[in-house]
């Protein structure tokens, strides 16, 4: 048996011997952990709803492509750099074979941020002929997981397809005759590859430059504005660009998409554009870079969906004159910003739109900071209370077991190891508490998300939660360190003489 194993064995045995003590102490930590986990989840929700509220776009879908879209459009979209996820939506009604009524079948990924349904029983369809239905559908149609439905598909009413119910899902609305399955099977069922729409989730956020200037209407900027802006000492990194609002991708009009030849590499905040698929360095003639148009990108001065090389815009027949420019303010603070705005206004004359995006960005960041600060201070208080509780319990436990400590020292446990053993024990309380708290907080966090109706799928931020468990264990171990060191300093004779 290794030394470490011995210590742990002894501690675990002790915890098992006094389950009430371990549980009660764990409870103090559980309360703290509960709050911590609840806060982590609530913070996610807050962040999401705040951003979603500001941008007015759905939480996860950044771009919606509709019109004449097919599964080929979907495959093409998936290959575009900057697209993290793409799903196709279809819905079609199928009558029951040899009976009245029928079932609406929707395509949905079933998991991930773009899923609109969540499996509550069984599993999500993965293969052909499999379907998941809503709870009401189960009740109304008297179905069970594992049961089979026969629907008529296609033009031929005699052609019937058996569908195996593999799961029950919770959907945003539940009319009582709805089934969900994969895109592939939905398309096969429909007998064609047409999609109602394609939803894209793009790779994360971009921050704009400080100031955005746009031309009146869709026309070009006043002549000489770019040159004067470049000459102004109050401005840095003046980047002109052209925007063309009418772009069709493979003959498909895309909502919220404007083609722009902005050179991202010229912006100071280019690192924030974070192309997680593909690289900005790859952008060039004939290539397209997609930008996110949700959340913080609601502040994009450009509102760009497509970034193109200037040569491509030329080929599209867009006039050479710039239609807007982005600039960074050279100095810090509101005064430098105001001076720069005044200079641009003087240079551009009336009619030129000037948006100080830095202000919006600061406001948004300020709101988030305030919410986070309130949450964090509540959190800190709870954790302090819990850690003090564990410290007290450990101190008590140490006093109670002075004789045991003395014996361990007498038979040859070093001071350092005795202190380590007692500290590990305190840390165990943290682990017990954090685990209890986690079990309590997960349903709570889920309820919060459901109650806020944020429409956000519940995520399980495993990495962050594991970090919190570790941090709590470390905090409680730290709380146990002081009494443990005190116990280790007592001589073995004194400790052995202590009354029980």
């Amino acid at each position, binding site marked *: *048996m*290794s*030394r470490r194993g*011995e210590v742990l*064995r*002894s501690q675990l*045995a*002790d915890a*098992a*011997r006094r389950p009430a003590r371990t549980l009660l102490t764990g409870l103090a930590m559980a309360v703290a952990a509960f709050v911590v986990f609840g806060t982590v989840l609530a913070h996610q929700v807050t962040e999401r709803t705040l951003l979603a509220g500001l941008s007015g776009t759905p939480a996860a879908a950044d771009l919606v492509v509709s019109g004449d879209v097919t599964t080929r459009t979907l495959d093409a979209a998936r290959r575009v750099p900057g697209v993290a996820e793409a799903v196709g939506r279809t819905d079609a009604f199928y009558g029951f074979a040899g009976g009245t009524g029928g079932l609406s079948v929707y395509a949905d990924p079933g998991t991930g941020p773009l899923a609109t349904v969540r499996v509550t029983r069984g599993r999500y369809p993965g293969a052909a002929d499999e379907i998941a239905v809503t709870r009401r559908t189960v009740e109304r149609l008297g179905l069970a997981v594992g049961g089979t439905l026969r629907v008529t598909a296609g033009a031929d009413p005699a052609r019937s397809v058996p569908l195996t119910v593999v799961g029950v899902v919770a959907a945003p609305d539940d009319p009582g005759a709805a089934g969900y399955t994969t895109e592939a099977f939905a398309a096969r069922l429909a007998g064609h590859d047409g999609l109602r729409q394609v939803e894209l989730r793009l790779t994360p956020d971009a921050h704009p430059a400080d100031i955005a200037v746009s031309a009146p209407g869709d026309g070009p900027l006043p002549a000489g504005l770019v040159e004067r802006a470049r000459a102004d000492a109050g401005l840095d990194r003046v980047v002109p660009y052209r925007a063309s609002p009418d772009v069709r991708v493979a003959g498909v009009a895309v909502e919220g998409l404007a083609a722009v030849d902005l050179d991202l590499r010229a912006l100071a905040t280019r690192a924030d554009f974070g192309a997680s698929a593909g690289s900005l360095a790859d952008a060039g003639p004939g290539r397209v870079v997609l930008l996110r148009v949700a959340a913080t990108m609601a502040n994009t001065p450009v509102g760009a969906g497509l970034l193109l090389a200037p040569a491509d815009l030329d080929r599209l027949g867009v006039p050479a004159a710039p239609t807007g420019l982005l600039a960074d303010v050279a100095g810090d603070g509101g005064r430098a910003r105001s001076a720069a705005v005044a200079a641009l206004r003087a240079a551009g004359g009336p009619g030129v739109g000037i948006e100080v995006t830095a202000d919006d960005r600061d406001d948004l960041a300020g709101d988030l900071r305030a919410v986070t600060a309130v949450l964090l201070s509540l959190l800190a208080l709870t954790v302090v209370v819990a850690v003090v509780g564990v410290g007290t319990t450990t101190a008590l436990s140490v006093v109670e077991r002075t*004789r*045991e400590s*003395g*014996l*361990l*020292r*007498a*038979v*040859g*446990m*070093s*001071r350092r*190891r005795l202190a380590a053993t007692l500290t590990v024990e305190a840390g165990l309380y943290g682990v017990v508490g954090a685990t209890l708290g986690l079990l309590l907080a997960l349903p709570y966090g889920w309820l919060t998300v459901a109650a806020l109706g944020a429409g956000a799928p519940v995520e399980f931020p495993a990495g962050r939660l594991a970090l919190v468990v570790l941090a709590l264990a470390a905090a409680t171990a730290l709380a146990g360190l002081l009494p443990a060191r005190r116990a280790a300093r007592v*001589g*073995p*004779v004194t400790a*052995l003489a202590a009354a029980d």
Partner: protein
Amino acid sequence: MTKHPDPAPAVAAVDLVKVYGRGETAVRALDGVTVGFRRAAFTAIMGPSGSGKSTLMHCLAGLDTATSGQALLGGTDLTRQPDRVLTRVRRERIGFVFQAFNLLPQLTAAQNITLPLDLAGRKVDPVLLDGLVGALGIGDRLTHRPVELSGGQQQRVALARALVSRPEVVFADEPTGNLDSRSGAEVLGLLRDCVRTLGQTVVMVTHDPGAAAYADRVVLLADGRLAGDLDRPGRDAVAAALHDLAVAR
């Protein structure tokens, strides 16, 4: 009295002084004790309460540090060693048997026995362990926890724990103090057996003349000084010597 009464003692005290407290309230628990304990012998330290017998044992066993003088364990002076070394000495060279057994309640008898080896990261010699367990008659109690054992059984487990690391010397502090007379006699008999059969050196502190009568030699202390040295005394001889000490005071 000579400085070295024994040519090669397992344990020896030389001019050992232990002072508790400071200034006017200082107490000289040991006041210049010089005594040696032979190898493979069973020696009892006796004396009235406050005679310093427990203090002498603690200093010789590296549980406490003396104020001056030497506490020699096989030539090592324990009074000059830092805590780190004393810890090691206790773990590897000394075995303890206490009045209150001092078994860890959360461990089984077997785990309690091997605790010193586990702490030292050493392997248990299964032959030695089997022999000890058999000799001590606790073979059927190994999976029990201390609360499930009688006092005599607990003390025998404690004895096995003291012997399992093959220490140079076993110190027993009032090992029969918490036992009824029958269990006490059994434990004393076992202590004497391990001196006879294993050649173990045993030093026992006791105030019971009956217990001391099991020893090969009885060392008497009074007021922190050596007050007598009896070779293989009977129970009555020990009682008489103790009585004389009490009268002399």
